[in-house]
């Protein structure tokens, strides 16, 4: 009798406590979002957090494929006119219905956002000549130049509720203040949550800088309800304590544990983990323009990096697989191009960049450098995973084939300003394609800069290939997907042949979690509560 009572009591407690326990989720982040304002700074941690509270017209799935979100469908007329059909029956977390006015208001706000960090979405809306709403659930956007990636870019542009600011009839006309009669909200206004009103699956509960961001389930969400009633994000920037927190049971999910520590949880039944390749490619950018180049010393006084044979030799001298195995603890994929295979505009099967020191030596001799030359590789030591160790390994590989290499490692605060002043000869770089397709890297790094620096803004090595330039300039205004993918593949091949960029690997992102949970991982490195599922 007693025993039955006790077991009944225990069963009862379990029944009561299990759902309550299962409904809250605590996630440790490696870097903290800098603001709640979704239009403040276009940064990975910010964008990941914002996606919980706000929706864009479109969204990207875990492989960065573009899917409908607040817009159910879209089409363009083959030129510059896009028509987006908006989702019916959506309400904001404050109860206001979602209409085309909110879209116009949000687009306007990116242009009237005084506190934003430059380029945080104003570059997208700055390309709009007109935004009209023929009815309450249709938006017609006309762009200055054809923009095939508009749906990709709109996935990150959060839609605010126009009810947060007093206004008359809203119209997309920044010069006339878009019809807004009150003052435009600034970044500080969002941090207490009053203006953080979105249509997303979660709503804002509290934000204490450095301590936590708390969210709760949005019961008015238009999609299927989320399994988690409460989600807390805690910033723990140090990898050691972050993993210790998971081991001690303080956190349910952590992002970016150190790859070398994964062995600590690999054989532990209480935890699971996922290693997901990201689009972030790590590469060396060579100075192929100047003569002489500041950090190259050759006997003949020239810049050997200008010779394609030397560049090829450098790539052949590097054992990518060994770097991944020994330095990256296998949490990376070898890169033979600048975007992972199979993504839009990437080559399906790029030729393998093999390790062949003998061939490298032969090429160097052919190019007139049988005794090699001296080189300094410049790198950050606090930006990419194991960045300075990778560069050191590459320096040793290069030295082995006769290119006597040294490493100059520095903090990113010093490195990036120096790199943009073109102070280096061989510089480590990293690039994550936020658009999830090939033009992101190609237009930014190898392209010859145009005046407004909308393309070629990071061409610090002075790479110049007129044929490639023609291809990339065509690709970014080609609206036909199949045609654009083909041109991008041709452009990518050209850059690989040029050899002025030596790809090393794609960083992988790691998430670790309690064994009763499951996280699929995302190519864009976002940590999203929406994708944390119960393992059962």
């Amino acid at each position, binding site marked *: 009798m007693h025993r039955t009572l006790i077991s009944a009591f225990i069963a009862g407690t379990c029944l009561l406590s299990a759902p309550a326990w299962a409904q809250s989720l605590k996630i440790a982040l490696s870097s903290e979002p*800098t*603001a709640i*304002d979704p239009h*403040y*700074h*276009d940064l990975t941690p910010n964008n990941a957090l914002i996606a919980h509270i706000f929706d864009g017209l479109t969204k990207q799935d875990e492989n960065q494929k573009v899917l409908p979100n607040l817009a159910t469908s879209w089409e363009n007329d083959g030129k510059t006119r896009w028509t987006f059909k908006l989702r019916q029956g959506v309400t904001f977390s404050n109860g206001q219905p979602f209409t085309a006015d909110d879209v116009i208001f949000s687009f306007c706000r990116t242009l009237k956002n*005084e*506190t934003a*960090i*430059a*380029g945080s979405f*104003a*570059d997208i809306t*700055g390309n709009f000549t007109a935004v009209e709403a023929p009815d309450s659930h249709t938006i017609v956007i006309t762009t200055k130049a054809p923009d095939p990636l508009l749906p990709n870019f709109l996935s990150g542009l959060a839609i605010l509720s126009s009810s947060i600011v007093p206004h008359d009839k809203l119209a997309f006309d920044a010069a006339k203040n878009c019809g807004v009669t009150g003052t435009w909200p*600034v*970044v*500080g206004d969002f*941090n207490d949550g009053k203006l953080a009103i979105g249509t997303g699956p979660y709503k804002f509960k509290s934000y*204490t*800088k*450095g*301590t*936590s961001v708390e969210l709760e389930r949005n019961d008015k969400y238009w999609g299927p309800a989320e399994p988690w009633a409460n989600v807390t994000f*805690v*910033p*723990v*920037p*140090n990898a*050691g*304590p*972050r993993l*210790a*927190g998971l*081991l*001690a*049971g*303080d956190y349910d999910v952590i992002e970016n544990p150190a790859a070398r520590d994964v062995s600590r949880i690999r054989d532990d039944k209480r935890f699971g983990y996922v290693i997901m390749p990201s689009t972030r490619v790590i590469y060396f950018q060579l100075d192929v323009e100047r003569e002489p180049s500041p950090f190259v010393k050759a006997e003949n006084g020239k810049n050997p990096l200008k010779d394609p044979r030397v560049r090829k030799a450098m790539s052949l001298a590097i054992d990518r697989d060994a770097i991944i195995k020994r330095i990256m603890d296998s949490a990376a994929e070898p890169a033979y191009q600048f975007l992972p295979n199979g993504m839009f505009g990437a080559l399906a099967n790029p030729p393998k960049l093999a390790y062949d020191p003998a061939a490298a030596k032969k090429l160097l001799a052919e190019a007139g450098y049988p005794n090699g030359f001296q080189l300094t590789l410049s790198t950050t030591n*606090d930006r990419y995973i194991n960045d300075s160790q990778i560069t050191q390994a590459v320096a040793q590989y290069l030295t082995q084939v006769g290119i006597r290499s040294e490493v100059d490692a520095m*903090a*990113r*605060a*010093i490195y*990036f*300003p*120096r*790199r*943009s002043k073109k102070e280096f000869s061989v510089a480590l770089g990293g690039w994550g394609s936020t658009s999830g397709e090939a033009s*992101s890297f190609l237009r*930014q790094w190898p392209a010859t800069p145009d*005046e*407004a*620096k*909308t393309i070629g*803004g*990071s061409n610090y090595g002075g790479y110049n290939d007129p044929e490639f330039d023609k291809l990339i300039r065509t690709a970014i205004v080609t609206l036909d997907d199949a045609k654009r993918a083909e041109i991008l593949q041709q452009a990518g091949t050209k850059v690989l042949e040029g050899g002025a960029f030596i790809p090393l690997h794609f960083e992988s992102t790691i998430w670790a979690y309690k064994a009763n949970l499951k996280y699929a991982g995302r190519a864009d490195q976002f940590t999203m509560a929406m994708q944390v599922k119960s393992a059962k």
Partner: protein
Amino acid sequence: MTAYILQRLIQSILVLLAVSVVVFLAVYGIGDPIELLVPPQVSAAERTAMIQRLGLDLPVWQQYLSFLGNALKGDLGHSFVHGVPAVDLILARLPATFELVLLAMGLAAVIGIPLGLLAGLNPESRPSRAIMAGTILGFSLPSFWKGMMLILLFSVFLGWLPTAGRGETVSVFGIPTSLLTLDGLKHLALPALNLAIPNMALMIRLVAAGTTEAISQDYVKYARAKGVRRKRIVGRHVLRNILIPVVTVAGMEFGSLVAFSTITETVFAWPGMGKLLIDSVYQLDRPVVVAYVMLATLLFVAVNFLVDILYAALDPRVKLTGEMA
């Protein structure tokens, strides 16, 4: 008296000015924050607009003067990274750091002083030697490693305390504190202990050395000859005399812990001011770094100023004349 205070005041202002120049130039010299703030794919027009808005296109002396002008009006600038006033950012972190340091110094005193006395009274005994050996460990273990070991022991293996972060807070006179909740104290325990250990070692050493010295002084010998009980000699005569240097050192330590307990705050993800400083340095968030150092200097200058005046008021031998340096 008035002349003296006035002179000290002018000195304090000069110190603040000098520090502001040095800090401003140093932070300016590290690098260009634009490269870290603005993503590379941003168009040249947007980038230029941002540079102008932050005033980074002006020559450094002009930037400094406009900073100084605003500072006199009480505005130390907006954070580049967070877009909110730098002072708000720093003051919001102050209570967290303050309660951490308060608890750490309290622990250090409550444990350190008795142990120091014990070690100083019988320097040759076994426990005393063990205590003194322990202080060497307390000094020399790096804070970062010690923090990780505390986490491993108390959180991962024993599971008694949370690993990192600040716990539940309650508001007292509008200031959030975690000293008054159980969850808050649990979160405080490890970082406070980590911060307390080197200070505890310091106190033990100071008290022990002072005690050994004091015990051979004439007034102690006289008291003993008079037949005063040992307890009273230690508590009344020895302790009182040796506490003066201890209090001085503890005060100095308190100030530097409030401003620079960076490593402990980083390991335990404690949302205090030290962590803000280190984050801001990494991100070249100039206004926050400058405002931070200015506030810290102000704190030290103000405390010194008060101490000097108090000192003069307490000790009649100190003359308050304008000639005094």
